[in-house]
Each structure stands twice: as structure tokens, then as C-alpha cells.
């Protein structure tokens, strides 16, 4: 019996290691600017949970781009008991922070997780706690630990416990199935919010993190719906003649910017959520679409081909004449604004195809972050540290996250279906 148990444990550990490997992390540029961090092997008496805990925290911190997780073979101590850090030895190998974790059984289905973070430069314990959780909630706990570590080391609030919404497409030409799904920020734990045999598009989170606006072709034309992801309650908010698309919630949740074409051509309108009144924000005979709000709600960024090819513009919430923001290349579209309002991520056409570009608004400098042939739908993490987007991979479409400095990219390859149009949730309120 004991032997069978051991075999089972081994098999499960192998399986989970395998799932870990599906998260393909790709370091694209030098690591000199990243902080060298060590994560010692997770100690304890529950090996499955230890492996899971370690893999989740490792990949969270790794793909943020802020840290370089140093190989274990360089560690002067393979395990560290509470406050038993040999600081001089760690500093000798140039590591600046050390995270230790322990997972021990706390009765049936429960596990106690203890974690400590040491600042190896200042030589002190900067974080430490223990928490008891159900085994099936361990991923959540791991993401929370990543959040705390991230915030302690960077001063920026961690966003690993947030979620992503996206569209998945399964099936052949004969019968396709489109699903609006939400998952943890690393792509795990996907669940379906809405399913249809017709296309779904453009999910957008409300600032409360509870509701999603999206476009559905269920009536063979575009219409915009809002759905509460906890209750499933769903309502149609726009069904004008012509296009109803590209919903974007204002930061205060009172308005939704959207693209409507009943006036003759696609323009940006502001829908007052409470009164359902519409106000036309842009007015041009060309295409205006893909609205994105500045975090203070004062500006709406959008894509327009008024210059002859798609470029990013911005207009005041009150209206007025739009200001062109992008001048690099002849195709910039689908803006996403960082939480501090200083950066715009966008789809940028270049020699390799369509990649994700980043504009620093203050410095007016532009940088290409990805080199895909058909990268689409960039969406900033609520802390601005990463951008999630869809990319073509092996004849399918998968989600990828890139650090905002472009240094680290990670593919989230967790399901068979084509997945696209990710939208990163706000922080939970």
C-alpha cells in the first residue's frame, strides 16, 4: 500500500512538473537590469503542494521581468531555517533577495504555508508569514505570496492575483464554439462566462472587476452585452443599426466608450451607463474605433485612419479636436493605457509583421516589444508591469505576456483552443 502511494505521488509530481513546463518562459534580452533573487527549494512534508507552490511563485516573479531567479546550484545554502541566513555567503554570489517557503500538512485537505523574504543587502527579514489553506486554494495563496514579494522588492503593487478575460475558439468550420472565459492571470483555472456558436469579441472589464462588456454576433450582427461574471446576469446595452463594438469602461464605471456607425461611419460614442444616453465623442468620415481611457478619465485614446492609415489619437472626455499620438510606421492600433497613464501599448506593423509596440507619452519615444507576425489585443496589467496579448504559435493563437520593458516574454499555453483578445482585470476592490 505504501509503495502504491509513493508511485502515485511520483506520478502526480511528474504531471505537475509537466504542466509547469507548458509555461514557456523566454528571456529575450539581457538580464542586467533585473534584480537577482533566490528561491530555495520548498521544504515540508507535502511534496505535491511544495512543487506547486514553488512553480507558481517562480513563474510569477520570473515573467514579471523585474527579477532574475538565480539557479539553485549557485546557492550557498540549499535550505534556510527561520533567521538562519548566512548573509555574507549570499552576498558573495551577488544575490540581493532570498525567498524561502515551507509547506506542511495541516490535517486533511489542508496545508500550512510559511514564507520569509530576506533582503540580503540590508541583511534583514523584510516579510514573513504563515497561512493555512485548503489544498485546492494553494494556487491563490501562491499568487498572493508573489504579490507581497513583488510589492516589497519593487514598491509596485503585485498583480499576480488578478484575472484575465479572453475569447476561445474551438471546433472546425462546420461547427465552431466561441467562449468568453476568465482565468487566473497566469492562464490557469479557466472558466466559461458565456458560450455561443457565433463569434464573440472584445471583452472589457468594468472597474469593479465583476462585470464584462463584450461584442456578440449571436444575432448575426454586432451587439454589445454586459454580463456579471459572478451572477451570470446579462443585458444588452447597445444594438444600434450598423456596428456596435469596442466597449471600454471609464475608470469611474459611469460611462462606456463604444464604436457605433449608425451615424454614417464608425465613431466613438460615450454611453452613460445609468441613463443609457449616448453622446458622440468623435466625428470624422474615416474609421474611429478601439477606445481606451486614460486612468484619470480625462482622455480617450482611439484608433483612427483619418490620416489615411490607422494611428492612435486622443481626445478629451468632453470632446474637442483629437491629437495624434503615434507617428512611427503606418499601422498603429488597439491602444491600451498603463495604470500611471504614461505609456500606450498598441499593435504596431513592422517588417516582421504585427507586433506589440510601446509609446512613452512624456518622452515621445517608441519601442517595439514583440516580434510576432500577428500579435494582437495588448492589455496592460493593472500595475503596468506587464502586457498580455495574443500571438500566433504553431498554427494556433495563444496568449503571451511581455514585461513592460520588453525583456521577458512568457507564453500561456494552457488549452487546446485558440485563445485571443485578452483583457487584464483591474485589482479587486
Amino acid at each position, binding site marked *: 500500500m505504501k509503495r502504491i502511494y509513493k508511485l502515485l505521488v511520483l506520478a502526480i509530481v511528474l504531471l505537475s512538473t509537466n504542466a509547469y513546463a507548458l509555461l514557456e518562459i523566454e528571456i529575450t534580452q539581457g538580464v542586467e537590469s533585473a534584480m537577482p533573487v533566490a528561491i530555495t527549494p520548498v521544504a515540508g512534508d507535502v511534496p505535491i503542494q511544495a512543487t506547486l507552490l514553488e512553480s507558481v511563485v517562480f513563474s510569477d516573479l520570473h515573467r514579471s521581468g523585474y527579477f532574475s531567479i538565480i539557479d539553485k546550484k549557485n546557492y550557498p545554502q540549499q535550505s534556510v531555517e527561520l533567521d538562519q541566513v548566512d548573509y555574507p555567503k549570499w552576498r558573495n554570489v551577488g544575490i540581493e533577495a532570498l525567498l524561502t517557503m515551507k509547506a506542511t500538512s495541516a490535517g486533511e485537505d489542508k496545508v500550512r504555508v510559511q514564507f520569509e523574504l530576506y533582503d540580503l543587502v540590508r541583511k534583514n527579514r523584510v516579510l514573513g508569514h504563515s497561512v493555512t489553506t485548503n489544498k485546492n486554494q494553494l494556487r491563490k495563496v501562491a499568487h498572493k505570496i508573489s504579490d507581497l514579494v513583488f510589492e516589497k522588492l519593487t514598491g509596485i503593487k503585485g498583480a499576480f492575483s488578478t484575472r484575465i478575460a479572453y475569447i476561445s475558439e474551438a471546433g472546425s468550420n462546420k461547427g465552431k464554439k466561441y467562449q468568453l472565459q476568465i482565468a487566473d492571470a497566469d492562464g490557469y483555472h479557466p472558466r466559461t462566462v458565456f458560450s455561443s456558436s457565433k463569434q464573440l*469579441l472584445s471583452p472589457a472589464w468594468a472597474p469593479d472587476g465583476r462585470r464584462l462588456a463584450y461584442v456578440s*454576433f449571436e444575432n448575426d450582427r454586432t451587439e454589445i452585452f454586459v454580463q456579471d461574471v459572478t451572477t451570470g446576469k446579462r443585458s444588452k446595452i447597445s444594438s444600434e443599426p450598423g456596428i456596435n463594438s469596442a466597449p471600454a469602461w471609464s475608470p469611474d464605471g459611469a460611462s462606456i466608450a463604444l464604436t457605433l456607425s449608425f451615424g454614417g461611419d*464608425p465613431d466613438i460614442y460615450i454611453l452613460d451607463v445609468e441613463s443609457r444616453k449616448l453622446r458622440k465623442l468623435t466625428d470624422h468620415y474615416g474609421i474611429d*474605433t478601439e477606445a481606451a481611457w486614460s486612468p484619470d478619465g480625462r482622455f480617450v485614446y482611439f484608433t483612427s485612419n483619418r490620416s489615411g492609415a*490607422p494611428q492612435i489619437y486622443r481626445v478629451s472626455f468632453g470632446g474637442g479636436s483629437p491629437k495624434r499620438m503615434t507617428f512611427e510606421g503606418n499601422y498603429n*492600433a488597439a491602444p491600451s493605457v498603463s495604470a500611471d497613464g504614461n505609456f500606450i501599448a498598441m*499593435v504596431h506593423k513592422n517588417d516582421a509583421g*504585427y507586433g506589440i509596440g510601446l509609446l512613452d507619452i512624456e518622452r515621445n519615444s517608441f519601442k517595439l516589444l514583440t516580434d510576432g507576425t*500577428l500579435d494582437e489585443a495588448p492589455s496592460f496589467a493593472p500595475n503596468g508591469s506587464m502586457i498580455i496579448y495574443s500571438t500566433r504559435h504553431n498554427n494556433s493563437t495563444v496568449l503571451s505576456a511581455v514585461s513592460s520593458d520588453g525583456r521577458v516574454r512568457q507564453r500561456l499555453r494552457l488549452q487546446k483552443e485558440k485563445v485571443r483578445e485578452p483583457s487584464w482585470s483591474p485589482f479587486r476592490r
Partner: protein
Amino acid sequence: MIIRQVSVIFFLSLLLAIGGCSSNKTKGGENGAMGSDGIEDGAPIDVGEDDYSSSGLDDDGSLILDPLDDPASDLFVRTIYFDYDSANIREDSLLIVREHGKYLSSSPERLVRLEGHADERGTREYNLALGEERAKSVREVLLLEGAQEEQVEIVSFGEERPAVEGTDDAALQLNRRVEVVY
């Protein structure tokens, strides 16, 4: 061009001939007699039940010869192709679109839906708008040729419903289109 004229003449004469048929048929009564089409009156011909909806025959049992279904007609072309990121109708497509406009003008009972599409490059939302711009370009020509606004409906599917799968130039071209659906 000559071939086209010949085919138009052929088509017109065919129309006349059919016109003759159906008037004969009306005289022939309701017993399934085929009149002057080479089959003896009263011959037991099974034309199925009275459902002609998918038979290519009209209520009177005549062949439905709508000019839309003449393979030699410009009207037989129902897909208009576009250049990358463009909603301009190409020179060679303009003649075809105009023919559809003239047809609609002369057949006010006819309705048409223009379905605009884009290839997969670029963003989905922009392509949704681009598909509509393409459909609107086609509509504009139809209206110029005398079609009425009520006859023409437009809808955009953006890049969501490609005609063909594939990422090469040929596939992308086939997907940048407006489908004229009667």
C-alpha cells in the same frame, strides 16, 4: 465584350421563349400538362408535389431564369475583392458593382445584403470597421446606379468569417471582400 453581347442576346431570346411557355402553360390548366415544351399533353410526368421552392421552377412549373443566375452575366459575380486596408472599389470590379446597381434599380422588389469582410491582418475591431467601409463603398455605387436605400442592407463581419483559411497572400486576398447576397 462581344461574347458578353452575344450572351445577352441569347439570354433575351431565351426569356422570350420562356415567356411563351408560361402563357401556354396557363392555358393548359392545372392538370400538369406541359404544353409546347415537346412533351405530349396529358403524359404522366411526375414533377413531385407542388413544392417548387427548391426545384428551380416557379409556381407555374417554368424554369426560373433570373438574370442573377446567368453564369455569363456580371450579376453572377457576387464577391467584390479589395486591396489591403482599403475600401476603394477597384477599376475592374466597378463594372460589376454597377451592373448590380442597375439590376436593383430595375427590380425594386429585390433586396440585397452587402457583407463586408477583412483579412486577418491588423486588429479585429479595426477590421470590423474596415469591413463596413467596404460594404458602404459598394452600397454607394448601387445607390448611384438607381438602387433605393431600402433595398440595400449592410453588415460587417470584420475578420471573423474568412472565406478561406490560410495565411498566404492568396488566402488573404480571398478574404478581403464584400459578398453581395440577394
